[in-house]
C-alpha cells in the first residue's frame, strides 16, 4: 500500500513538473498549448537574442505566433512530430540537466545562459538524432525569423512588387478554394507576357513586407 502511495506521489510530482505552472500566453493560439508557447518563446530568444548584427529578437519576430500559423497548415502527421519535438526539448532538461545552478528545470524555466548552453549541447552532440532534433527546431525558428519584414528589409531580401501578367492559364483557374465564377479574367484581359526586364534593386518592396522604419 505504501509502495503504491509512493508511486502515485512520484507520478503526481512528475506530472506537475512537466505540465503545470505555465503562464497564459499573451495572445491566443489555435494549435500551440501554453507550454509550447512558453518553450518557443524561450527558444526564440535563445536563438535570436536582442541586439547584435540584426537588432530584431526572436521575441520581436513573434516566433510562437508564426509557428502557430505554420502548424495550422501543416500535414497532421508532421504537426504531431513538431509538437513532439517541442515537448522533448522542453522537458529533456528534467532528466539531462542544464549547467548549474538548478539545471533540473524545464527549458523555458532556465536562465538565458543555461538555455543557450542546452541548445549548444543539442547542436554539437555526437549523436546524429540529437543534432537532427536541434536542426529541426532551428529550421522552424529561422524560417520564422526570416519571414519577419524588418529582418528581410534590413538584409535587402524583402520580396519586391512585381507586375504579374495575365496569361491564358489565368482564364482557366480560380483561386484555390473558389469556383470558376471567381476567375477574374476574360480574353480581353490578357496582357503581354513578361518582357524579361531585370528586377531592379530599387523596386518597391512588396506591401506585405513594407513598413515604417526598420
Amino acid at each position, binding site marked *: 500500500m505504501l509502495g503504491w502511495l509512493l508511486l502515485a506521489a512520484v507520478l503526481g510530482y512528475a506530472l506537475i513538473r512537466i505540465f503545470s505552472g505555465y503562464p497564459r500566453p499573451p495572445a491566443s493560439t489555435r494549435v500551440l498549448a501554453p507550454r509550447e508557447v512558453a518553450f518557443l518563446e524561450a527558444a526564440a530568444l535563445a536563438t535570436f537574442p536582442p541586439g547584435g548584427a540584426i537588432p530584431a529578437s526572436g521575441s520581436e519576430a513573434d516566433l510562437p505566433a508564426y509557428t502557430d500559423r505554420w502548424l495550422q497548415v501543416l500535414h497532421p502527421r508532421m504537426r504531431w512530430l513538431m509538437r513532439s519535438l517541442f515537448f522533448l526539448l522542453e522537458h529533456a532538461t528534467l532528466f539531462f540537466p542544464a549547467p548549474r545552478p538548478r539545471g533540473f528545470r524545464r527549458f523555458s524555466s532556465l536562465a538565458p545562459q543555461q538555455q543557450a548552453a542546452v541548445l549548444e549541447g543539442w547542436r554539437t552532440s555526437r549523436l546524429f538524432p540529437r543534432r537532427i532534433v536541434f536542426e529541426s527546431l532551428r529550421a522552424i525558428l529561422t524560417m520564422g525569423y526570416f519571414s519577419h519584414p524588418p529582418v*528581410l528589409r534590413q538584409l*535587402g531580401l524583402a520580396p519586391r512588387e512585381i507586375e504579374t501578367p495575365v496569361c491564358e*492559364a489565368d482564364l482557366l483557374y480560380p483561386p484555390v478554394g473558389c469556383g470558376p465564377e471567381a476567375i477574374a479574367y476574360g480574353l480581353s484581359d490578357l496582357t503581354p507576357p513578361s518582357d524579361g526586364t531585370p528586377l531592379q534593386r530599387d523596386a518597391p518592396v512588396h506591401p506585405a513586407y513594407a513598413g515604417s522604419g526598420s
Partner: protein
Amino acid sequence: MKALSGHGGEVRVFAQYDRDFALETDVVVVGSGPGGAVVAKEVAEAGRRVVLIEEGPPFTPSDFELDSAVSMSRTMRESGLRTTFGTVMPTMQAICLGGGSLVNSAICVRPPDFVLDEWCERHQLQQTSRADLDPHFDAVAAFLGIAPTPEDVQGPRNLLFRTGCEALGIGSEPIPRNVRGCRGSGECFTGCRSRAKQSMDVSYVPAAVNKGAQVLTSARVEAVRSDGRRATGVEGRIVTPFTGRPGHRFRVDADAVVLAAGCMATPVLLHKSGNLANRSGQVGENLRFHPGVAITGFFDERVDPGFGATQGYQSLDFLPEGFKLETLWAPPGVLAVRMPGTGLDLKARLAQAPHAAIFDAIASCNRSTGRVRPRRRSLDPRLLWRLHPEDVPILSRALYVLAEIFFAAGAHTLIPGVQGIPPELRSLEEAQVLRKHAFKPSDFVTGGNHAFCTTRMHGDPAQGVVDELGRCHDMENLYISDTGVFPQCPSVNPMYTAMALAHRTAQVVAQLD
C-alpha cells in the same frame, strides 16, 4: 499559343464537385507534372479524348505564398517535411497542378551521351540513346522555349560562379531553362509571379485543354482498376485542398491508363491496386536520388543574392566524376537553416546575407539505393534509402571543387555545412579538410528532390516494370510516365528527360486502338 476557344476541354476545381461521378474516356492520365502534362497534351492533340487527373489544386499568382514555410506546406506533400529513413534526407514532391514544375527552378538539361549509353547497355534498351531521344527533346524545347538564362538576369550571385570557374579553367555555361521573360526575381520555388516560368500549368495543361482535354483537380486516384492484363480505368476521391480530407468518389473508365503521379506515388498506387504490374517485383524498388550539397560563400562586395535567376549557371565538367555544379538561391529562411550556431553568432552570420552566394552540387549516387513502400492506411509512402559509403567521396569531392570555385571567385569565408569539420573555412588550405576528412553519410546536410527508378524501364520484363516506351510489361494498356521509369540516375536535373520520354510515350499511347 492562341487563345482558348472552347474546344470542349475544361478544368474542374474542388468547389465544383457536388456528387459522386463517373467519366468515360480514351486515355486517363494520373498526375499533371512534367510527365503527365506532356502526355495529356500530345495525346489530346492526336485527337484522343483525355482526362488528366491531379490531386492538388491549380495555383494562381494570388495563391503564391512568399513565406517559404507556408509555401512548402501548401505546394508539397507532407508539408515539405517528407524524409527518407535509413540515411535521413529531406525529399520534396509537389502536390499541385503542374507538379514539381510549378515550384522547381526550371532547369532543362539533356543527360550526357555516356549516361544514356549506359542506360541502354545495362538495361537492354534498344532505342534510348541520345540520337533516339533528341527529336523528343527538340519538340519539348520548341514548345516551351527552352533557352540559356540571359546574361542580364543572372545577377552577381550567378556570375561569381562563372568568374570562379574561368579562373580555374573549369567549363561553365548559363543554365538552359523553360522560362520566357525571366526577370531574375529568384522566386521559382514559391511560384513565379512574373509568369515567366513555363511550368506545366501555364504551358502543356492549357494546351491540352485547348485540344479538348478534361482536367480534374483536387482528385486523388486511389486505385487502378483492371481486368486481367487490361487496365480499365481509375477510381478515387475528391480531396479538399491542403487538408486532403476525402469527399466524393469518382471513377474514370478508359481504354488506356497513364500513371504519372511521380516516383513515390506511382509505385504506391500500383501496390494499393493489388500489386499491379509487379511480376518483376521491381515496383517500388531501386529508389535513387541525386543528393544535393551546398556551400554558402561570403564576399567583401555586396552580392544582393535575392536578385538574379534562381539557378542561372552550371558546370557539366564533372559529370563523369558523378556530380553537377550549379548556382542556387532559395527563400532566405530555407537557406539560413544551413548556417551554424545560435544566438548573436548566428545573427552575425545571417547579417552577412547581402554578401553571400550559394553554389550547390547534385551527385549521381547510383550505388545508393532504397525502396518505396505504401503505408498501411495512407497513400503517403514509406521511404527507405541509404547513402552508400562508396558514394560519400562524390559528395566530399563536389564540396571541395565548390570551395575551389568560391575562393577563385574572391570569397573570404565559406560555410560548408558539414559535420565533423570546422564550420567556417577561410582559405583553400583550410578547405583541404574536405578532401582529407573521413566523412560518414550522416555528416552531410543533403536534400534529395530528384528521385528516380522506382518503376524502372528494362528490356527484360523480369528486371523492370516498363519497357523503354513506358509500357508496363505485365499489362496491355498501362503506361508510366514519370521519373520512376528512369533506369539509373540521369546525372542532370531530371525534368527535361522526363518530358522527352513522356513525349515519346505519348506517341505510343495515341496510336492505341
